[in-house]
């Protein structure tokens, strides 16, 4: 499943797997999904221990799909490991490790292949442990792949949280929700603040936006109305 097909089709959701109490937390990839990208992106990326993934600019990944030209082939004698050096002209060559059985076709230099695999780092150099390798069946795949790389970059860039009011902050609230809650927390009287007072305080939003936010927050239980439907306080655990 491609990275952008997760998250209910909403876009590029980069979800984390495994919670705090997960005993396999250190082993499992935190970022699920496959990133279609260039080899240069992988080579430029740095591994983050904290997030258990590779990061470069707006990209976070562990599994990638790349397409490139085989430059070198190295077969283990009597072994099951084949090593390919792949070049997709993005600037840089990456090593692909492919553990195979004997049934696969042997791949030759100067042929294009598609590789899906996990990025690993060893001695400061990134390489890919391939889950899947296949020869290009059509040159159209190469064009599609190039377009996908650009598309993935664009979509992920747009998905990354911004200071736009409709995007979520780290605690899951939007900018306006945070503003309303923060203001309500400063209330010292039992009746809290009225809609009018809140609107006056939050000059960057109009009263309609404030009312909608209050309705949402009270529906979720973060705030409650007091003396009448226009006065609010935050609930205790906020």
């Amino acid at each position: 499943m491609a990275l952008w097909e997760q998250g209910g089709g909403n876009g590029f959701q980069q979800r984390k797997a495994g919670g705090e109490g997960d005993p396999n937390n250190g082993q499992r990839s935190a970022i699920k999904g496959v990133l279609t990208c260039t080899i240069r992106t992988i080579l430029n990326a740095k591994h983050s221990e904290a997030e258990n993934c590779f990061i470069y600019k707006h990209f976070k990944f562990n599994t990638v799909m790349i397409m490139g030209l085989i430059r070198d082939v190295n077969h283990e004698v009597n072994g099951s490991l084949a090593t390919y050096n792949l070049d997709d002209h993005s600037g840089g060559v990456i090593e692909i490790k492919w553990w195979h059985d004997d049934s696969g076709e042997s791949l030759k230099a100067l042929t294009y292949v598609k590789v899906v695999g996990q990025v690993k780092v060893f001695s400061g150099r990134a390489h890919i442990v391939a889950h899947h390798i296949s020869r290009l069946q059509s040159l159209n795949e190469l064009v599609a792949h190039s377009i996908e790389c650009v598309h993935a970059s664009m979509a992920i860039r747009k998905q990354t949280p911004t200071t736009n009011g409709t995007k979520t902050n780290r605690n899951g609230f939007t900018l306006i929700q945070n503003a309303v809650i923060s203001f309500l927390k400063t209330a010292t009287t039992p009746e809290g603040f009225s809609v009018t007072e809140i609107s006056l305080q939050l000059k960057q939003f109009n009263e309609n936006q404030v009312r909608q936010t209050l309705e949402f927050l009270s529906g979720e239980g973060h705030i409650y109305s007091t003396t009448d439907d226009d006065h609010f306080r935050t609930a205790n655990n906020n």
Partner: protein
Amino acid sequence: MTHHYRINGSMIQQFSGKPVSIIGTVSKVHPSGNVLDLETSDQQHIVVRSSDHIVDVSPGNIIEVLGEVDNRNQIACDTIVTFESEQTANFDMDMYNQAVMLFQHYPQDYLVNL
């Protein structure tokens, strides 16, 4: 290994001196064996000079040329990639041409690594 820009015929001048990748159709291989004429995805004709003797290439073949644009708007090429006929049988050259031109409009994503 540097980044090779995907270009078509009309972009050659713009990329003078830069490493490029061009997919096109071979129109002619010169008798010398080191030079070929390539028809690009936007129906322009360019000259490709190879450092090695050109093998396995015939007129009508679709190939990828990797090299640098020289000061005569020809390609000094170090690698020619050939394909099996099944791989290029249904190749949509026009789609490729559109993609190549489209990439120029999105440098932030096409050239995210530069």
